[in-house]
């Protein structure tokens, strides 16, 4: 990128203020004001390395995917842990179908439907002629229809960092019939759709796009061909999964915060390309689910420990954030684990009678928030 390109971009940013709206990272204020409530959550049981998604069933138990396995946790404090299934690839998004089946997104394979009565899963492996390499989330509507999102077509979910730094918009939303007979692509060209949920009234499908920092809603008319409407735009972090809270709202997990440095590197093509080509992705200037443990990771000046303490307001390498959205998409409450905190890289949160259960993938922990996020 030569001098002229940079100049032109600066000129454009002055002239075209609206187009640059995505550039400005909004401050965390209002309902998103930082706090330490996520750090105060109770870890559930032993660590679950790679814990990714968590959904609640009707009886108050939760299903959690971690690595290649899916567990069912039940009882007081979710103390009872049972292995439900193990797959050949990483298990990601989970959903419970109204007919009782458990739907699991499996990296490199597709969507598995586990029938409690039948041990062998049934698979849905492609849509629109492209195999499902990296389904990120799945949800079932009350009428039985299944919707799944694939972050980036042809890419497994563990390559999400490359997808962001290559500035791809290659995700899609897929509609799947309850019997797995038919799968059609409803939307494509999405900026890494990560989470998907059905609104409480059953009339619209909400989904997150991580690289576009937004949550959109798609009307679920029978006629199809609908256009999604942006419900929350330009968020301060990268939204991950979205689950209904059972009261008309949503629990949105943000797996990382946007930082000025990352936004800057996204504009610096020359630097970014060389970084991608020559470095281990763990050391990129890119969002991270967990950080601080390796001295080869990039570091920012404000993160220097002062008098032995990492300041919570330091620019975060990783962050923990769960946001509660109301039925209109307005944030009403949030749980934070700031720089130097314990539970980072949250990818999912679901509501249960015992409280909100949170999957902190960066830390490899399931957490219980008894405090009542609302």
């Amino acid at each position: 990128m030569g001098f002229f390109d940079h100049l032109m971009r600066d000129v454009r940013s002055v002239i075209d203020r609206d187009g640059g709206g995505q550039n400005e990272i909004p401050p965390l204020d209002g309902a998103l004001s930082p706090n330490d409530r996520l750090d105060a959550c109770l870890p559930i049981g032993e660590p679950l390395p790679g814990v990714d998604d968590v959904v609640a069933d009707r009886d108050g138990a939760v299903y959690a995917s971690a690595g290649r396995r899916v567990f069912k946790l039940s009882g007081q404090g979710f103390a009872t842990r049972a292995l439900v299934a193990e797959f050949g690839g990483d298990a990601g998004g989970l959903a419970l179908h109204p007919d009782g089946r458990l739907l699991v997104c499996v990296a490199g394979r597709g969507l598995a439907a586990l029938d409690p009565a039948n041990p062998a899963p049934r698979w849905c492996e492609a849509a629109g002629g492209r195999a499902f390499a990296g389904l990120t989330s799945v949800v079932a509507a009350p009428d039985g229809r299944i919707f799944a999102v694939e972050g980036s077509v042809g890419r497994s979910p563990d390559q999400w960092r490359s997808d962001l730094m290559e500035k791809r918009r290659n995700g899609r939303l897929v509609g799947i019939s309850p019997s797995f007979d038919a799968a059609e692509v409803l939307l494509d060209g999405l900026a890494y759709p990560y989470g998907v949920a059905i609104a409480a009234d059953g009339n619209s499908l909400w989904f997150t796009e991580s690289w576009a920092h937004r949550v959109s809603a798609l009307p679920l008319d029978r006629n199809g061909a609908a256009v999604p409407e942006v419900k929350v735009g330009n968020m301060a972090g990268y939204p991950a999964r979205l689950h209904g809270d059972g009261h008309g709202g949503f629990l949105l997990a943000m797996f990382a915060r946007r930082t000025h440095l990352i936004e800057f590197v996204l504009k610096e093509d020359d630097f970014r390309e060389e970084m991608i080509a020559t470095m281990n992705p763990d050391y990129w200037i890119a969002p991270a689910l967990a950080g601080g443990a390796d001295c080869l990771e990039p570091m920012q000046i404000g993160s220097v420990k002062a008098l032995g303490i990492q300041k919570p307001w330091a620019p975060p390498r990783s962050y923990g954030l769960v946001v509660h959205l109301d039925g209109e998409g307005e944030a009403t409450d949030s749980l934070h684990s700031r720089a130097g905190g314990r539970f980072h890289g949250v990818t999912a949160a679901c509501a249960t009678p015992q409280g909100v259960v949170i999957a902190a993938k960066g830390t490899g922990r399931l957490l219980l928030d008894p405090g009542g996020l609302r």
Partner: protein
Amino acid sequence: MSMTMDSFTASVRRFSPRLLLSELLLKQWFEPVIPFTVMIGLWLYFALTIPDYASTQNMLSLLRLFAEFGFVALAMSFCLITGGIDLSVGAIFALCNFAALFFLLVLEWPVGVVIVATLAVGAALGSINGFLVGHLKTRPFLTTLVTLIILRASVNLLNTSYAQVFATNSVDSDAWDFLGVGSVLGIPINAATLFVVLLVCHIFLSRSRYGWHLTAIGASRKAARHAGIRVRLMLFFTYVLSGTLCAASGIFYAARQSSTDSTTGVGWEFQALTAVVLGGVSLAGGKGTVWRAMIGAIIIFLLINGLVRMGIPGYVTSAVTGMILLAAVGIDVKWAKNRGKAIQKIYVNPAFVALAPAPSVQRGSGSPFAQNDRLIHAQAIGVDQVEGPEDVILDRHDRLYGSTRDGNIIRFSGENFTTREIFAHIGGRPLGMQFDRDENLIVAVAGMGVYGVAPDGRVFKVTDETNRTWYKLNDDSRLRMADDLDIAPDGKIYFSDCTTRYEMTTNTLDILEARPNGRLVCYDPATKTTRTVINHFYFPNGVCASHDGRSLLIASTSLCKVFRYWLEGPKKGRTEVLIDELPGNPDNINRASDGTYWLALVGIRTPTFDLASRKPGFRLRMVKQVPADEWLAPALNHGCVLKFNEAGEALESWWDPTGISHSTLTSMREHKGYLYLGGLENNRIGRIKLDGVDDTWTGYDAYWGAKSRVTR
């Protein structure tokens, strides 16, 4: 060949027009460069378009015409510098012209008396302005406007009465003729006088106490009064001076023209104002020199004169000068307001640095740099009782000293170092420390220089400046950021001044800039002189005299290398690379008991920071676009101490890889079998037991006592 090519590309990469510009803009003398260029350009233009313009004859006659206007412009500039204005300069000039002729032709006074009397008239007229502005505190603009109108009317009145007399009377005086048409050394007398007056005024304004008072009043009248400057009196005399200068102008004019009419000096106040502002004397006051005023005056004079010669009508000329005044005033206001910002925008100029490959720090890799946990459980001393002990040192009585960010030297003593006391308060940011032979603690203090603390706690200055580099625009004689020091066997104190472009608070910018802005300086106590030993060093940090005292080891934080500088022997005066590849940014270096050295790594090189160091444009845009807190840095939240030998081979490392106890580890000091650890931003001093080392070895003994390895 390749060497020369390399150094050539290196210097091309190092050269930065932006850097030159930013440093030029910081200079006071650079400000009139644009008016000066305009002046030269204008002269060249007329020289090319008007025949015979550049001839000596023409030049001399132009000078003669110019001189009188020059005096008036000078008068105006003095008033502007005090924050006022004198619109009556033209009228005073006209009245003095009349007065001179009146004294000479009507009263028939001798020439000498005429001169003195006319100057007195000018001074008296100026004193009216001075009294009103200075003592009655009237607004200079309105006051001098009123005097302009009154004096102008008086001149016209007097002219009508005496024009006849002047036209008929004449006086035969060689002295008077000399004033009108004479020359000194080939230069017209009035121009020569103007030049002498300018010199005197320049010295008065820039070198004398009263000149400074004038400028101070112009910059802030209130502050000047608070500082005890006699504002009223100074203002009074400024207007008197202004009147006197106009009178001098009037005398020369009278001698040259021997006539007066209603147009004499009309509009001169306006031309003088345009000239002076154009030259860079600020309308807001407090800024300007006599030379700037003259540059402006010459521009306006050349322009008006040239336009007249080209046959352009007078009203067009007036309009042009009006436009110029408008532009000059606009630029004056904008420039005064935004100069600082403009400099700030272009001051940081990152350069390309090709760092050597970073050796692996992989845990268990078998490399001497492999990460381990040997510092995590270091015994903590004075937790939360010290704020950032950048350096630590122990004296002969096993007392522990730390240099902290609050400007103190904190001392711990007693069993387990539980007694804390403030040994000395120096101020600034004390960094590297060393004991000299007399057990004075010599301390490098960022922002101040090198200071000493006697054993009784008395603080004394060692040095705070060095010789200035003659070719550098930035005045580098002051020590900006003395960082670490060591003392050679002959008592000379060698210290690093890590940057001459930034301060302690902004030194991260120096690392990001990665230019050789630092230097190694030597203070010789025998002659009490300070000299720069190595200029242009990339962020020199730790300094350590080698065990044999024949060389110095110098750590370069931004290049991630350690250098050796030879103090004596066949390589005396030469600098060579001792350790080329380091996994981090080296900080302090100190002697170890077994004849090797300790080295602290304040930061660990990260792949991204290394990549950024090869991309100066990236760093430049980052500094501009990203908030300072979010700039990329080397990994500073990790503690690492290395040991290396005389050959520069790393032997072992001690780590706190995630900075649990020791982040930003900047120094370590071995003492009686223990290693003491200090950190720039840490809240403690650490210590670990060393195995298999000389348990009686102390730093003091290694420098000045029985453990010294200096060979003579």
